[in-house]
């Protein structure tokens, strides 16, 4: 299953990258379509993060994940540094899980 998923993902990723370089797109992309495609990756990535922040392990978060998520957004907005935000998020989650009784 995992190998089928990897092979399929490799194929669709390559087709998406190669299509316009091989055959070109017919005419200009409609403005609405371009805006939708522009917004799509961030929306999917946010959708991946949402459940892990709000309902980790299938139950409503007791706080650590949400607090860390807010901190990551704040740090990234402030310093424009991905790695710093991720390290801070991981540290805050670890700390709060330690402090809050499980």
């Amino acid at each position, binding site marked *: 299953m995992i190998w089928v998923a990897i092979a399929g993902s490799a194929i669709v990723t390559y087709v998406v990258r190669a299509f316009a370089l091989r055959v070109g797109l017919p005419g200009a992309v409609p403005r609405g379509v371009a805006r939708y495609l522009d917004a799509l990756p961030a929306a999917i990535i946010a959708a991946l993060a949402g459940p892990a922040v709000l309902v980790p392990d299938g139950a409503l978060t007791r706080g650590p994940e949400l607090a860390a998520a807010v901190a990551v*957004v704040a740090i990234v907005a402030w310093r424009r540094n991905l790695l710093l935000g991720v390290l801070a998020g991981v540290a805050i989650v670890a700390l709060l899980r330690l402090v809050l009784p499980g």
Partner: protein
Amino acid sequence: MSPQRAALAEGWPVLVSVVLVAIPFGIVARQSGLTPAEIMAMSVFVFAGAAQFAMVRLFVAGTVWPIVVATVFLINLRHLLMAAALRPHFAGVSAARRMAAAFVLTDEAFAMAIGWFRRGRRELRYYASFAVALYVLWVAATAIGVLVGPSIGEPRRFGIDFAITATFIAIVALGVRRRSDAVVALVAALAAAALTSLGASVVAVVTAGAVAPLLVLLARDEPAA
């Protein structure tokens, strides 16, 4: 300076940050129970940072393969437009070379190439050098992560399991240019969480991720900040 040297001289901070993303990818994927062969295959053949992290998350959740492939497809759909924007610069190049250029097309390589072409330069070696360097570093750094991954004990205790989520949040936060970007991200995150808690976790990400961007079509045209 030759185009090759210019690509590395201008692009090295980006290449360093690629290494700093690929090592955690290898670690997290290993901690998630994937085999070294599976992890390396993702970096060698899929070669797409955010999509690879997404795949790990979906594998951990036991997601069926069509949903994994659909999610990867939607995350990488943006490359269609990037390739279309690069196409005129590759006009005099053989189809085989364009096909090779497509394999190493990433957000970073696209951005560097556009910056080069906007300065009136035309050499494609700039794109090729940068894109191939990024590919080699991505694969090598993944291998480093795979090797050191098992020596980091009990992931949950150190919050390592949160690293993927924190990476997703940081990627989204870095990409916010307009208010509508933030609104779309919040709606997508909340909708996916709601669908998950209602038991629809299999389709939550694809559904929320594909529907939320429709909101930008309702937003007034704002110039990017």
